[in-house]
């Protein structure tokens, strides 16, 4: 719904821009249709459009991602094109050299694909299942926490802290991920908690 609404707004905005052109000469009543037909040959008709935000800097440019397949319908969706969102008040459809390359980062050859473990001293990663990886993480965390958790300091004050394991949080995840991460990390008593604000 959001998408349709903003599409119409885009048409409204665009019609102002072409009012003085030959398309504009057709009259305001027909202008949306005239404009639509003029761009129809370029329409990515069989693709699903999804609005997103550029993952790089904090200008937070609006983008439109085009996919084969619709994720919302439960289909496998393969993103084939990404462009600037012309409705967005900040970037107005433009993207910089970083944002213009977004498609390549989505499909980077060096995306991580499977959970892997590198054993002590080994020279390679070995693929494991999610269950194996997560059980191992929980085991390592619990063992270290149980061994090194400080319930009281030397003065007998309750401090309930765990400082032998630390967590560095991401800076391109969503606020919702951040909140879930905060809850899980803080509940363990971790104090070595930081993010990319400093770098």
């Amino acid at each position, binding site marked *: 719904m959001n998408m349709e609404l903003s599409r119409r707004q885009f048409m409204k905005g665009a019609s102002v821009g072409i009012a003085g052109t030959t398309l504009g000469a057709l009259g305001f009543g027909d202008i949306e249709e005239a404009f639509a037909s003029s761009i129809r040959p370029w329409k990515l008709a069989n693709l699903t459009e999804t609005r*997103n935000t550029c993952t*790089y800097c*904090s200008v937070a440019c609006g983008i439109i991602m085009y996919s084969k397949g619709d994720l919302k319908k439960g289909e496998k969706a393969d993103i084939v094109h990404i462009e600037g969102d012309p409705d967005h008040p*900040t970037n107005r459809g433009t993207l910089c050299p970083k944002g213009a390359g977004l498609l390549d980062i989505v499909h980077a050859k060096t*995306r991580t694909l499977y959970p892997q473990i590198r054993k002590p001293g080994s020279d390679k990663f070995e693929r494991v299942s999610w269950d194996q990886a997560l059980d191992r993480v929980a085991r390592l965390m619990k063992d270290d926490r149980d061994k090194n958790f400080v319930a009281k300091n030397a003065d007998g004050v309750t401090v309930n802290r765990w400082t032998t394991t630390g967590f560095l949080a991401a800076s391109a995840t969503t606020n919702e991920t951040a909140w879930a991460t905060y809850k899980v990390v803080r509940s*363990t008593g971790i*104090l070595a908690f930081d993010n*990319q604000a*400093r770098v």
Partner: protein
Amino acid sequence: MTNSWTDIKNTDLVVIMGGNAAEAHPCGFKWVTEAKANRGAKLVVVDPRFTRSASVADFYAPIRQGTDIAFLLGVMNYCISNDKVQWDYVRAFTNAPYVIKEGFGYQDGLFTGYDETRRDYNRSTWDYELGDDGYVKSDIDHPRSVWNLLKKHVSVYTPEMVERICGTPKDKFLKVAQMISECSTPTKTMTSMYALGWTQHSKGSQNIRAMAMLQLILGNIGVRGGGMNALRGHSNIQGLTDLGLMSNLIPGYLTIPTEKEATFDTYMSTRGFKPLRPNQMSYWQNYKKFMVSFQKAMWGDAATADNGFAYDYLPKLDVPAYDILRIMELMHQGKVNGYMCQGFNPLLSAPNRKKLTAAFAKLKFLVVMDPLQTETARFWENHGEYNDVPTASIQTEVIELPTTCFAEDEGSLTNSGRWLQWHWAGGTPPGEAKHDTWIMAQIHLRLKALYQKEGGAFADPILKLDWRYKDAGNPTPEELAKEVNGYVVEDVRDPNDATKLVLQKGKQVVSFAALRDDGKTACGCWIYSGCWNEAGNNMARRDTSDPDSTGAYLKWAWSWPVNRRILYNRASADINGKPWDDSRKLLWWDGAKWTGYDVPDIAPTAKPDVVGPFIMNPEGTARLFTRGMMRDGPFPAHYEPFEAPIANVLAPKVRGNPAARVFKGDMEQFGDAKEFPYAATSYRLTEHFHFWTKHSQVNASMQPEFFVEISEQLAKEKNVKNGGWVRVWSKRGSVKAKAVVTKRIQPLTCDGKTVHIVGIPLHWGFMGETKKGFGPNSLTPYVGDANIETPEYKAFLVDIEPIAGPVA
């Protein structure tokens, strides 16, 4: 940002200093172009390099990296000496008239109370003198008024002194000072756009304070086209900071207790924020409502009034913070066993890579969650000279977990201008990649199950963590966002009429104004309250209307706090509530209430001549003098970087920032100018984003190879050819690179000495599509800002020599 990207179009003067928006934030920079084209605004760039921002500036002045405070105090001195001050603003809205305690002083580069052994100050004299009525004394003509102290403090920063310290030729400095000073009239506004060029110094916080003070003197805070505008680096670093994912923070800039605060009551006793001047809002008086609501969001029913709302479930700090530098120092000492990196590549982004590699190798386990194969996850893998490590002897177990990227994820991101914008997932994750929320939930549930089965160290905070999600293993963005907004835990009735329900259990709270300190409301992050209330997901709003084209876009997405677009906006009008500039009105007093183009940053009916605009401060005014709130001084003062080409000409005995923390062994690893004669700095290129875009083929093609930039003069002196190979080294490491010999960098003359600058971009490592290369962190010192420990990446010393290149 106090303002927003779209607001920049309203300015008369853009000062880019400590940043390079044209290259690092190109689509935001277009609003500078807009201001230039439509308002006739001017652009000033002050930078060690002639950047692309400088190339379109109306005026460019060079400066030596790490000397911004001397420059800015010089401008302040110019404004004060030439009476270029917006007096009505300064007198009414700043603490300029307040009287400071007797005994406060500044001499030989140090403020009162310095203790060299602790590298710290006793800050007791850095405060106001209180009157018998308990309020701060106010008398601008008093010899110890903030204004008179400031005047004296900046007087040493003459144009000649600025030239001597900064290397900025006097005439160029004066031109910039004159352009800035013109913005002291109520109808001219300047905006400050800065980024890591200011933060990544051992006195980064004071760099920013210096400009904020200048902006206050000019009356440019809270107005359209003004403000202090931090161009945040990563897409949601504003959000992660707002949500308190830092050692000492609780969401919404509340703080983790220290071990001196044994009980909840002790903790709250220092957070009362009683007004320091009559009738002030002192909004932090509501601290307890935000804190208790946060505790309820964390631990639900387990947080009760009887147990201080589960106060003991929160860890207590024994040091100011376990920031990234401290934890890696502890790791290096062998005192840390486990480390988890979520979307963060510290092997390339923390300082002194040699130290980091040694530190990681002492870990028992390292967990990396990332959409990309990072160098950190492979710190144990030998990549020849690019990562020459003894793999077999590294006993760290490394677990790499594949996560989704932005395109496959739904939720909100907070931009520089504090807009929370919702986005939707459009692609299927590759392979077995999973959302970070799923991974965090799985870790939590598995830990919880282990504690339920085996027992162990104080498990209550884990066992009783409120986990109200339909699918416990996979919380949805909607569920999490609603929790962040806050909800009603128990019905609240009108105290005067019990039949009236004020808050209904289970409903979303409308904003933080509804939060309570009795446990009847829960809220993850008070400043985000209102983002998803009963009106729905306000972050997903996409109405582009903007009445009278002010650039506010109040119906686009949602900004914190309470959808306010310009912070301190009450200061856009004078003491009587009349806008300073009729052509740029923002907010005004209509006789009964505040009204205008933005959500008022003050109680809507607070009388203009009674309640001050800086409602978070107990004074109601903005601070030119920060009392004891910053570790390194109530005023900024010039300090050299820890590695500087010249001594501090104002205080030759002081090395670096005297209050910056330096760990044992790191001081010995600082180089001096005799051994390392060249002043290096680091920066981004427009084609790349940190260490991510080197994984993108198109970006890797545009900038495939690591290089360093030097001037033609230095190249000639060292016999370096453009495109030839060089070795660059500091006391901590060495890198090889191709040399770009450029006119964009020019030698400066500082204190009579020629200073050559070496530029080192930061985008290369040993993973991805580019050629393998090095980053500046192979060279940079292990020291951070005195207040928040941002590492000093922007100013350090190196040497350089030509070398034979690799055989092609």
